[in-house]
């Protein structure tokens, strides 16, 4: 096990923390800014990943598609009112290639709807590639591999 670079570790963990707070605070318009322009964001069932199947419930292969999703959520889509709360683990850096870092982290999303009950909504892990530039980490790709393959009602807000 090689030494973890504390600066890199800090950059990745800071990105994850800011990303989750951004979603949980409902600042969806800021969410695409965590990604590079030519990015890939997926939310995919673990049962698919484990069986080599590619279908994802969300598959955005450009930042424009992330923006389109947010606009759709704000203006078009109908879904139960809810708040979410992400709990994330410290990232594990799985590889470094020039200015690109691979990392994984576990997440749990708790959801609270209008009835006031908080439920475990979606649990899984982020499988990421990040670009480190000018002391900042941005997501090149984020695959949210969810264990909770029984999605309650629908999945509107990004994970």
């Amino acid at each position, binding site marked *: 096990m090689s030494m973890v670079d504390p600066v890199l570790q800090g950059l990745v963990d800071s990105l994850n923390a800011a990303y989750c707070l951004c979603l949980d605070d409902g600042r969806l318009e800021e969410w695409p800014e965590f990604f590079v322009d030519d990015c890939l964001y997926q939310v995919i*069932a673990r049962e698919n990943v484990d069986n080599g199947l*590619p*279908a994802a419930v969300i598959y955005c292969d450009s930042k424009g598609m992330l923006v*389109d999703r947010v606009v759709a959520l704000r*203006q078009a889509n109908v879904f139960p009112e809810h708040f979410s709360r992400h709990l994330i683990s410290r990232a594990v850096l799985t590889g470094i290639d020039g200015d690109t870092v691979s990392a994984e982290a576990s997440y749990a999303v708790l959801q609270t709807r209008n009835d006031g009950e908080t439920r475990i909504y979606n649990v899984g892990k982020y499988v990421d590639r990040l670009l480190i530039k000018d002391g900042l980490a941005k997501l090149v790709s984020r695959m949210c591999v969810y264990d909770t393959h*029984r999605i309650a009602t629908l999945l509107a807000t990004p994970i």
Partner: protein
Amino acid sequence: MNAMAPVGAPSLPTAVDYRVYHDTQIFAAEQRNIFKGRTWCYLGLEAEIPNAGDFRATHLGETPVVLVRGQEGKIHAWVNRCAHKGATVCRSLRGNQADGAFVCVYHQWAYDSEGTLVGVPFRRGMKGVGGYEKDFDLASHSLEKLRVESYKGMVFGTFSADIESLDDFLGPVMRKYIDRVFQRPIKVLGYSRQYMAGNWKLYSENSRDSYHGGLLHLFYPTFGIYRQSQDSAGELAEQGFHNVFTFSKPKGDIDYGSFGDEANREMQGSAKLQDERLLQFRPEIEDDVGLHIQSLFPSVVLQQIQNTLATRQIVTHGVDKTELVWTYFGYADDDEETTRHRLRNLNLVGPSGLISMEDGEAVELCQQGTVGAEGKHSFIEMGGDDVRGYYAPLGMDENAVRGFWKGYLNLMGDALAVSAEASA
């Protein structure tokens, strides 16, 4: 409201007692009369279990079922309930049982891929003690086997010994549209599972309800791409309970840019898509149909929406618990770029679908709103009070919803009335 009044009698295809979404005795009667009755229920795709020994756990109504491809290539289905004490025999969602033997972990009764009991430990006891009687017949303690037939790779099962063939149950109109989607061999791209706190019939109505399309699902109009000039039509099978909707692309140009011209002012949203690849449609079947939604009673929807292909299996877990298992697929000869396009298109459908996520919410809203509303009725008279075999254009009618109830009420017969009396 007279508590003794039967539910079935006043329920018509145009007006259904809200009790049908909440009554546990009606739910039980549906399992008997519909799912275990004279219907063929969708269980999965042949393409999910291509090789000998491949299996997949599925459901027929609320009953857990396993679909297996036997050593000789034939597909079998049996109830996942050990003949000894009822334990679940197959505990995985999918896999391959190379030796074709399914062994119950509890006392290790072993079944072959057809569900026949082939081995029991200590059958003769030990040293003359214990064991089963000499006349214990393995074959008569097998798993409960279903009749299985498939059409164009869609596998259906039934508990009924005397129901018509699957082909006849589907009928010529439904078969024609299944042929349309399964024009070429397919490959499975993956699954999603959507769990709704609502009754299965609310979802069955939803998939047959063309009225809500442009009203609940606002993605297209928001982005100024409501296509008024497209052709649409609905066709029903004779019983009423199967139906198909088709929407065809406007004649000529299919550019995203041209859609706005056809929209009326209210439908012309101000938002602009940043990435129009999301909506790209690459016609690949020899017709102009861009949307094909086919509901096959009682348990599956087959769709082609743009370039998304999927089955949506309806699993009934309880009176207010319904699981929708989406199985996404493409054609076996798709190249990598085509698959990528399909994955991008899949953003439109499924539990996160930009044009369809609302259906899950609609089901739950109706379930919540009808609590305690026994004796009150829905109103299903948009576009008439009859059930027609053909309706066009769509969107201003509830013809296919009435068709669903017509078929449902026929199959339920007195069961609704009887269950109402029993619970009164």
